[in-house]
């Protein structure tokens, strides 16, 4: 009977989708997206995101036909459209799309909204820079620098220089050596972009290329390139520093950051025609709250021995703007002797975390079929430690042997916890490459953080997928990152007389506690969801407060700004919080009548946070790091030592104080004044403050938990029911499971944020599975303008619905959409956040 129930649930999950929580990794890739869908080769791509609007992205690729492939997204990379839908290219001779393009596309987007595109023109004799001020819809030519030129890189970085809040730099190879020009940017549009400074010849870089440039928070400019440019290696990565940035000084002398066995044209099985180079990449930690603020990272490719094709991705760092460099660390964690190449590095400027993605042949016996892998390193540890590598691309690509191969580089943007790698893909894993596996298309993916949980009594799942029990009592930081995002949980001790057994991970058997409240910092807002702060047991429900103000959620939730949102859980029980970094918290409460206590499952999805009791566990450690970045190392052999590590050192490190607490408090402060020492080291625990529950028999618990598909969750459920006797735990687990497979997200997407009066506007809604993989949602969407329903239900096709509005009056309008699933889909409804649309002109009233 139990088996049947479990099987039925499993089949239901297959129909509904696969929860992301099964991924078990610190990063979670979505479904690959084919941006180009063309019959030629599109590869060697760049990608960027508007730092002032995280829904806007732009990609730019080399292509084998005229022009350069260009696409844009206005819904955070869910869907992609084209500045020129007729041919999906720009710089192809069409008016207003820049001079004819050859190759080497590169991108930067500044905080004013200026989008910069650089490339080589058709004669390969000019570095062209285009400017777009409308998120990649239209373009003007900003600059063109003539010469025998190659591989330009454009960077637009915020600096502390009041005269150059954004420093724009372009670096390229000219007549064999590296050169650079920079300009100060003070606002949106060409009128706010200063004149480029004189050409700076970077000393000592003849025969050096294929590099990168980065700008420090103070405006110091560092360039890196590989020398020599030809041959199969060895070579050096050279670095030059321009200490005064846009000031009159030039770059200083070359510094050898590292030697590498990869030369400028190093032929490897996976890139047999094109060859690879070390592909040096730079990124500064620009997060002022990061312990390594101003640290410069250098990623590159090395070969363990000359010409053995065992290429690795390596990283060094510098705390003096590139003057001196650390020893290297290896980023890829495979145990093979196969090739990892063409890395791309990006620092999340909001958290200080560093992300790296690359082509990887670890799973190819012939060392020719490559997949995209990514990893991130946290900001806290003294030296970077990368988490387990995660495969991101859904397919494996073997070059078609064309003369392009995968190109010379891939692209990556990392912002607010979400990475968008971009690469040339020939696997047709998306089944929409028009000529199947004959030619490369440009692919991307949305790479989120992992899934974390604190469920039941409580059983934790770290962001990196490790399960362990954490029964301490009090208030703890469960997750946080450098952007200010933080989740705190209150654990309330529960008296027990029976312990079903030791936690398989820690080996510790103790008394238990439950999650009884959650508090979070969401952007600049503080949200709490906790029992009545009077301290009087209140079964009527938990209290939601925003910035300390008791709040009742309406059906559409509350926009917290900056991408933050709080709404009722789609399951009808609990709340969901969307964070600006793209992560989602779901709190699913239950009332324990015999104890007069609230308890809850707290699940966090797509979290890039790397700190807290639910933070990822670094390789070689047994617990997440402490608040100050200290690592506890491998699991001790002694159970006593494990208890001491977990419930003394670790718990106390993450315990919340009055100064750091995000909770709201009434007269009863006992909730956070629980002293250390819970749980006791051995056996069950009796608490004077709560009645002792009656355990449940094993077979009864198994029956109540049988519908849970995830094995660890099912075991936790059985444990909780046996230990506490509270059958409601099974219910909360089931609700959590349902949310994971059935919840959806609706996003409004418009080509433009504004329009002229008199024209209807076409709005698009994109509905996706929020926490699971599977077929696109089916059902319908209704659009609302300024809260007024359109009156039409638009059926979804491929997860998208389009609606042409009536003529809107001049002024600002709020557009939202509600998704109603097909009954058969089993999915849950969702409601979009507001999109703003400004209609200008029109009659004067």
């Amino acid at each position: 009977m139990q088996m049947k129930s479990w099987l039925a649930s499993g089949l239901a999950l297959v129909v509904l989708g696969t929860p992301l929580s099964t991924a078990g990794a610190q990063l979670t890739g979505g479904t690959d997206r084919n941006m180009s869908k063309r019959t030629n080769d599109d590869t060697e791509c760049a990608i960027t995101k508007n730092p002032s609007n995280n829904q806007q992205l732009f990609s730019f690729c080399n292509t084998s036909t005229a022009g350069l492939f260009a696409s844009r997204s206005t819904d955070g990379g869910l869907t992609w459209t084209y500045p020129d839908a007729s041919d999906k290219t720009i710089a192809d001779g069409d008016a207003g799309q820049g001079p004819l393009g050859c190759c080497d596309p590169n991108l930067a987007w500044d905080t004013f909204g200026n989008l910069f595109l650089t490339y080589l023109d058709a004669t390969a004799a000019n570095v062209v820079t285009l400017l777009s001020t409308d998120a990649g819809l239209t373009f003007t030519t900003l600059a063109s620098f003539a010469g025998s030129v190659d591989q330009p890189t454009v960077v637009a970085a915020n600096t502390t220089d009041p005269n150059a809040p954004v420093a724009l730099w372009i670096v390229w190879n000219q007549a064999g050596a590296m050169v650079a020009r920079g300009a100060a940017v003070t606002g949106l549009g060409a009128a706010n972009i200063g004149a480029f400074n004189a050409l700076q010849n970077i000393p000592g870089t003849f025969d050096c290329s294929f590099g990168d440039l980065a700008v420090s928070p103070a405006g110091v400019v560092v360039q890196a390139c590989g020398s020599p440019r030809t041959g199969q290696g060895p070579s050096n990565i050279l670095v030059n520093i321009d200490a005064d940035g846009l000031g009159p000084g030039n770059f200083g002398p070359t510094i050898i950051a590292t030697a590498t066995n990869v030369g400028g044209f190093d032929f490897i099985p996976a890139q047999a025609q094109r060859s690879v180079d070390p592909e040096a990449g730079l990124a500064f930690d620009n997060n002022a709250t990061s312990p390594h603020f101003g640290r410069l990272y250098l990623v590159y490719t090395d070969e363990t021995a000359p010409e053995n094709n065992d290429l690795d991705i390596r990283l060094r760092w510098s705390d003096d703007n590139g003057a001196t460099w650390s020893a290297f660390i290896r980023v890829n964690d495979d145990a093979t002797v196969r090739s990892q190449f063409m890395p791309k590095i990006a620092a999340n400027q909001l958290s200080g975390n560093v992300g790296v993605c690359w082509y990887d042949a670890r799973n190819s016996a012939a060392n020719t079929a490559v997949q995209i892998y990514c990893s991130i390193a946290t900001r806290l540890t003294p030296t970077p430690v990368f988490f387990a590598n995660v495969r991101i691309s859904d397919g494996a690509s073997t070059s078609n042997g064309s003369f392009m191969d995968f190109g010379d580089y891939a692209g990556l943007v990392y912002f607010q916890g979400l990475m968008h790698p971009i690469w040339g893909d020939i696997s047709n894993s998306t089944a929409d490459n028009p000529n199947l596996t004959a030619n490369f298309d440009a692919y991307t993916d949305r790479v989120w953080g992992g899934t974390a949980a604190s469920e039941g009594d409580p059983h934790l799942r770290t962001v990196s997928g490790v399960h362990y029990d954490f029964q301490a009592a009090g208030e703890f930081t469960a997750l946080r990152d450098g952007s200010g995002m933080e989740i705190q949980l209150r654990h309330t001790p529960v008296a027990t007389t029976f312990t079903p057994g030791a936690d398989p991970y820690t080996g510790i058997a103790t008394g238990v506690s439950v999650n009884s409240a959650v508090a979070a910092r969401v952007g600049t807002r503080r949200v709490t969801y906790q029992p009545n702060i009077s301290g009087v047991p209140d079964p009527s429900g938990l209290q939601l407060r925003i910035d300390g103000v008791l709040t009742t959620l309406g059906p559409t939730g509350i926009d917290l700004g900056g991408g933050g949102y709080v709404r009722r859980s789609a399951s009808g029980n609990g709340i969901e919080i969307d964070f600006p970094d793209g992560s989602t918290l779901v709190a699913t409460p239950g009332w324990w009548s015999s104890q007069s206590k609230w308890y809850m499952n707290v699940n966090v999805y797509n979290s890039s946070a790397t700190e807290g009791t639910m933070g990822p566990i670094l390789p070689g450690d047994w617990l997440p790091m402490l608040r100050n970045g200290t690592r506890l190392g491998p699991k001790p052999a002694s159970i006593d030592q494990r208890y001491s590590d977990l419930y003394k050192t670790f718990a106390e490190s993450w315990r919340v104080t009055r100064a750091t607490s995000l909770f709201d408090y009434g007269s009863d402060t006992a909730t956070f004044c629980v002293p250390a020492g819970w749980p006791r080291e051995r056996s069950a625990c009796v608490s004077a403050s709560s009645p002792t529950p009656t355990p449940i028999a094993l077979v009864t618990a198994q029956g109540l938990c049988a519908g849970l598909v995830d094995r660890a969750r099912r075991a936790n459920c059985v444990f909780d029911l046996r230990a506490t006797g509270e059958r409601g735990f099974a219910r909360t687990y089931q609700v959590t499971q349902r949310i994971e497979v059935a919840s959806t997200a609706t996003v409004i997407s418009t080509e433009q944020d504004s329009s002229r009066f008199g024209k209807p506007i076409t709005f698009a809604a994109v509905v996706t599975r929020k926490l699971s993989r599977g077929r696109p949602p089916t059902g319908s969407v209704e659009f609302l303008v300024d809260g007024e329903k359109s009156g039409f239900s638009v059926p979804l096709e491929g997860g998208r619905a389009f609606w042409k509005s009536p003529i809107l009056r001049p002024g600002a309008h709020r557009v939202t959409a509600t998704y109603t699933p097909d009954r058969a889909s089993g999915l849950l409804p969702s409601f979009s956040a507001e999109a703003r649309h400004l209609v200008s002109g029109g009659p004067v009233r």
Partner: protein
Amino acid sequence: MKMKLAAVACLALVPILSGALAHRRGDSAFGRITAVRSADVVVFAHGAGTYDLRIIGIVPPRDTADARVAVTFLAELVLNRNVRMRLEGRLPNGQLRARLFTADSAAAIQEVSVELVRAGVVQKQPNFDLKYGELGRAESDARAARRGLWAPVRR
């Protein structure tokens, strides 16, 4: 029309240039040409090494005299001059397949293969062209002007 149609036969010897694929631009290196081995093979000096480069997209004349003319034209264009080569691949014999650009004058950068075809000293490879049809246009120019191989009466 005494076109050197036999030159087409040479295509079979250049399998890597075959196919109807348009050109894909490769990464580049800046160096100097130290020798011209034939109308489509030069020696490229870069750093401490030298490399044999085969210029893509062209079919040299088979006729000895015509080939000599082509070699002379190529030498005048690039020998002992700075060039930028854009790598397109590698041949089994170790030669690098490349596009070649003059680089001594930033104001007058020329693609060597296009200039060879435009002068009529070599033919464009059938079923192949650069991104914007430069070789085809150059060959049309040469044909229209009856230059080199396309001259109506030769020798």
